């Protein structure tokens, strides 16, 4: 599904990613771990096409297509979704309008007619249940006045609406209490299919207990230096990153 080859990327002239290689196949959940500033969020931003980052070398293909040649919105239409670490508040744009614009833009890209209003509202109601999101929030502006937990649940709700094939969860567990974490993680699991994949960025094992990942990567100083099974995450939780750095000769 996703093929990243020798990816170098920088922001404001500072190189953050220094040759990342990563392959994600259909149905797999990959975890990306690493200390603050290692480049995890940069990698996710580069995949979704954030204009502040410049790719200086390497390639990303998504289902055989050159992702780097696409605009952010086209990448979204192709099935890539980022659950933001800090979801943005957009005063004055209602959740309903926002979601309908997003959904219909994707449908247009797929050659489909816009979804009728009644059908859309019914779909939104169903999807909101997955993350136990209050229907009242639908009438509010995007993320405005939402609590931290509501914002994160709202991200998974949007994911449910847009049905991406590759989801990137950037610290979706940060700032959540145990109940909210369970709701978000279970919501995510309900959306999984053998065709959908995910890249999960986290510092904590507790989210992974729910998600049951297939592969764990450790990103240090802009490169993936170690890849292992689910056990690697719990080992990092116990031992930190220093032993991996030593192993890698850093």
């Amino acid at each position, binding site marked *: 599904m996703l093929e990243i080859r020798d990816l170098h990327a920088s922001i404001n002239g500072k190189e953050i990613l220094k040759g990342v290689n990563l392959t994600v196949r259909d149905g797999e959940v990959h975890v990306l771990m690493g200390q603050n500033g290692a480049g995890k969020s940069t990698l996710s931003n580069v995949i*979704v*096409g*954030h*204009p502040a980052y410049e790719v200086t070398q390497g390639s990303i293909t998504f289902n055989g297509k050159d992702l780097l040649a696409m*605009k*952010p*919105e086209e990448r*979204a*239409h192709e099935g890539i*979704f*980022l659950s*933001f670490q800090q*979801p*943005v*508040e*957009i*005063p*004055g*744009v209602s959740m309903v*309008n*926002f979601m309908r*614009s*997003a*959904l219909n*833009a*994707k449908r247009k*890209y797929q050659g489909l007619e816009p979804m009728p209003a009644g059908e859309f509202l019914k779909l939104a109601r169903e999807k909101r249940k997955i993350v136990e999101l209050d229907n009242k929030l639908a009438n509010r*502006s*995007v993320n405005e006045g939402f609590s931290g937990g509501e914002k994160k649940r709202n991200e998974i709700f*949007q994911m449910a609406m*847009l049905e991406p094939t590759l989801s990137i969860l950037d610290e979706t567990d940060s700032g959540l209490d145990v109940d909210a974490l369970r709701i978000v993680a279970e919501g995510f699991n309900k959306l999984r299919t053998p065709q959908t994949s995910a890249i999960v960025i986290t510092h904590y094992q507790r989210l992974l207990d729910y998600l049951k990942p297939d592969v764990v990567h450790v990103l240090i100083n802009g490169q993936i230096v170690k890849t292992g099974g689910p056990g690697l995450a719990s080992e990092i939780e116990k031992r930190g990153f220093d032993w991996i750095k030593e192993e890698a000769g850093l």
Partner: protein
Amino acid sequence: MSSEKQYIDLYCENRELIDAHSAPAMNALREDALAAFQTLGFPSRKMERYKYTDVATAFAPDYGVNLKRFGFPVNPYDAFRCGVPNLSTSLYFMVNDQFADKASTRPHLPDRVVIDSLCKVAKEQPELVNKYYGTLARARKDSINALNTMLAQDGLLIYVPKGVVVERTIQVVNILRAEMDLMVNRRVLIVLEEGAQAKILFCDHSMDGHEFLTTQVSEVYVGENAHLELYELEETHTRNKRFANMYVDEKRNASATIDSITLNNGLTRNRTDVSLSGEYAEVNMYGCVVADGEQHVDNNTLIDHQAANCQSTELYKYVLDDKAVGAFAGRVLVREGAQKTVSQETNANLCATKTARMFSQPMLEIYADDVKCSHGSTVGQINDAALFYMRQRGIPEEEARLLLKFAFVGEVLDSIKLDALRDRLHFLVEQRFRGELGKCSGCGPNACSTR
């Protein structure tokens, strides 16, 4: 030759003709206005109030005038069919400065309410006009007042007598129509006597591709316990220059909502001057400006708290694209003795391009010591984080920008109390942002826009 001279000459050479086609109440003030105009001249940009608009240049070209009051052939219903759906209004038309008597359907109005040609009423019922005309908009106060008083021959009068409530919204469509470049001097007088209530909607349209230069001076009297909602919507075209001065006086317990919306224009200069002269009076002023190309919109306001216990709110929002220029200068004056004044003034602006320019100048001047007043202003760009968030969800960049701009002015539109008008304006503003206003199917050819 200075810009002033042609107008002075025009008046001096046509005194009799102007008077003959007007009314005594209006003629009585002309000589004084001439003297005032000769003294004042056009304001230079050194004058604080006119810092952002070059008046003399706007008035320099030689426009035609219609002193003999020829009627321009126009069927207003052809020109303007886009009413406000679901808003049942009493509809009136003004063609240039003339009340379109034949076109209006003479809607049923409560007893003794008058909506008619100012000139006609001034002749037939002078007592309704004499007492008010020229008392708020003094010629010596301002060049545009002086010029308008000197040359205006007609306009509109809305009179609501004591205690009368006009339930239906009064909609007045101002249509600019000419076969050459034209100067129009329009006069508006609105009188709400004690306890009267009315909702008034003005829509400015221009029908032809000609250049128009309009001066409009409005005097609005809101009596004790009277309530007024006044909405002004400008949807003209880029060759239109509008100089509009409005003076409002509110007596004890009166309230007024004044909404000014500029969706399409060339050069617009609105001066709105509100006096809260009676205790417990209240005014809420809102402004929404959407401008692009080389459009120029200058709103200059004064809220004069003369009496104690009054309240004022002011919120103006601008969205400027391309090389548009916006200006907002809002002065709130709290006079000595105007204790317990509550006043809030906000001006927020969005410059969507690097070449758009906004001048913002909120001013607060307080001479009382027990008041609660605030003022603030912001000028910003499109929020990049929000833009990217929307694009990541698949919303194309152009659409995302549009949604953000629309959201920005939404706050002002939401202040409109008439549901149907609010919905209509949401629709029009969205169309405007999509660049589709000129294609409005409800209007006849060229009615909305010749951009």
